[in-house]
């Protein structure tokens, strides 16, 4: 356990505090689903925005701290940093969607995913929060563009996952009468359109992120593509979403199948993001020089 002193200096304390805001927001959205009380999601959204502001401040503190202890590249590469950044991006994505669409029902899934990511980062021993110097392979400004674009896409895919779940809940209950919160959900066709738009937004960024990664590898490690597990899984993720956009042209593939692809697609994203680092190195314990780290 690190002392409160250090965690205040390096910003991790504020991420932990933001976790409690996101959790409170989640509780609100959850209650909303059961009661349908319209003021609760407004309060929840306010709390979430407060949490988001705290996170923004935490990033600033952390980056300045890293800079002060002599690390030139912003801390984004550790499991801890990437987890909190992931939570940050998907909350940001939800805030954007919420401004343009009336999507309170999405809140409980987004805040749940964000809380899980933040809780994992804050409390799992797998993700220590200390700011570590960057290893030589990662000392490059490509890193920032690479990670930022990919995280925007991960955030979008996270949101599409939430939307996919909502769609499936809604269509699964179509034939049953009543349903306390079905009426709170937006109509299926609106969710369907939102799934498409959020996914293609993510897909543009995913493509850009992969290309930037390849260009970086080309300028740093001896080749634009080496089929290392991380690269390969990013290609698999890309193929999954390319499949999604084409599946729409297949006769008989309705909204339900598309929603399933959105859900499965996010599982692939999560495996690409975490599974590759946590599971695959254990399967074949090798470390190629310069192999891609987290991300």
């Amino acid at each position, binding site marked *: 356990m690190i002392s409160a002193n250090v965690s205040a200096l390096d910003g991790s304390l504020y991420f932990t505090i933001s976790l409690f805001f996101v959790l409170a927001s989640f509780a609100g959205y959850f209650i909303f689903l059961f009661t349908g009380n319209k003021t609760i999601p407004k309060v929840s959204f306010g709390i979430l925005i407060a949490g988001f502001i705290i996170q923004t401040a935490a990033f600033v503190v952390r980056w300045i701290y890293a800079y002060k202890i002599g690390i030139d590249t912003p801390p984004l590469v550790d499991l801890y940093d990437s987890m909190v950044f992931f939570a940050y991006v998907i909350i940001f994505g939800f805030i954007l969607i919420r401004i343009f669409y009336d999507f309170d029902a999405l809140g409980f899934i987004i805040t749940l995913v964000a809380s899980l990511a933040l809780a994992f980062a804050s409390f799992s021993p797998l993700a220590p929060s200390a700011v570590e110097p960057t290893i030589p392979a990662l*000392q490059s400004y490509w890193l920032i563009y690479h990670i930022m674009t990919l995280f925007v896409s991960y955030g979008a895919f996270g949101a599409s996952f939430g939307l996919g779940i909502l769609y499936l809940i809604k269509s699964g209950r179509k034939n049953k009468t009543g349903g306390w919160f079905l009426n709170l959900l937006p109509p299926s066709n609106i969710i369907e359109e939102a799934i498409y738009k959020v996914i293609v937004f993510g897909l543009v960024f995913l493509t850009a992120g992969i290309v930037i990664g390849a260009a970086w590898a*080309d*300028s740093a490690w*001896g080749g634009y593509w080496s089929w290392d597990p991380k690269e*390969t899984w990013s290609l698999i993720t890309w193929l*999954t979403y390319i499949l999604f956009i084409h599946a729409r042209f297949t006769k008989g593939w309705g909204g339900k199948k598309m929603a399933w692809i959105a859900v499965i697609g996010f599982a692939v994203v999560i495996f690409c993001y975490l599974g590759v680092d946590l599971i695959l190195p254990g399967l*074949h314990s090798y470390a190629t020089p310069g192999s891609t780290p987290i991300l």
Partner: protein
Amino acid sequence: MKMLSKINKFFCSVKLAIFLFIAIAAFSMVGTFINQGDTTSQYRTIFGPEIYHILYWLGFLNIYGSWYFIGLTVLLIVNLVTASVNIFPHTLKAVFGPYPSFKEMMDKKSPKAAYEVVESKKNIEETKKVLNEKFGKPFSETETELYYSKNSIFRFSPYIAHLSIIIIIIGVILNVKYGFRSYTNIKVGEKTDVSYLTKNQKPVKLPFTIRLDNYQTKYYKDGIPKSYISKISIIKNHVSVAEKNIEVNHPFTYGGITIYQASYGHYRPTVAKLLIVNLKNRKLEKAVYAEFGKLYDAGINNIKFRFIPYKRPKRGEIPFFIELGNKRILKFNVLPYKNKSMPLIFAKYHDAVFLYTGVKSYYYSGVEITKNAYTSVIWLGSIILITALFFSFFFNHVETWVKLSGSKDGKKTSMEILSVPKKKFESFYKNFDKIIAKIKKDLG
């Protein structure tokens, strides 16, 4: 003929594309669970000989180069080209016409269509004017019919996206054909003009010679490596033409060939430095760089000696000894000197003292040497791809037909408005309703 159209239908089906996406993803997955590109003996120890043979036979040990992986990719390209070519005339017509008439479109009964009848209190000409304000400039116009088309040019974006995939694949093929990736270790102070291909360890001759002048690891305060730096010189016709420090993330390109810092290490030492002191006059007689096992002259009383490391040194014992010319063995002793970390290690024979001052080890730098030919084609294709994706996704082609019929007195007009989007979005229908409401307000 019938056969041909069947084949054609097979190759342009999106279902085939979906199958191919899944198949390629699945085989790629296999490659991440089975380590690719290890040596045969490594595979045999991991899997055992039987499973190794099965995996080898399945092509799972070099999956990305296997005939079926390449075959699937080729099939994907054929699929993509056939599908694009087949529907291209349809798209051309949608963009440049001749556009279908209102009646033709009504008869089609598209499930995506939005349809509304609006009565206008104005005559045909004035009604048209208001419609043009709402829908933009008509693409075609007759006395009683108007045709509007919005974002039609973006119908080409998917084709450009498909084309960019072909450009990228062409770039990759050219790169594989005309470029290479290789790796070699260079000892500090030595030079080489040969490197070894990453894919099969075959040697390639470089168009120049690389000399490693120096190697250095820099550390952060807490001992984590900060940078690995190799100072290299490029030598052509025995003349050094370029000098450069390379680091991870900072390679050096010369004549189309890029040299990357990839690894480092040191060879097992083969030389020890010994100082030989004559006890009689307390003079330093000689410094010898003794290659392990080789016979040297101590320069005192004709003493000959070899420096030999133990094959299996015991714990806590000094792991080397001296064998004299007469086969006598001299053990080394340790004398604490000044502080414990700098003891004196010596062996004595009559007047001669052998002082051990360390082994000489040679650092080497592992460098990747790559000829990345035609990568610019890949980057060009990628940029086109990203742009085309953006325009495919966010610009929805919308066509609108309006059929006007004036009343007998010419003062009123009845409008039938039919609008069909390329992509069936809920927002399209909302927007359509909004436009209709506005038209009703302005003309009703």
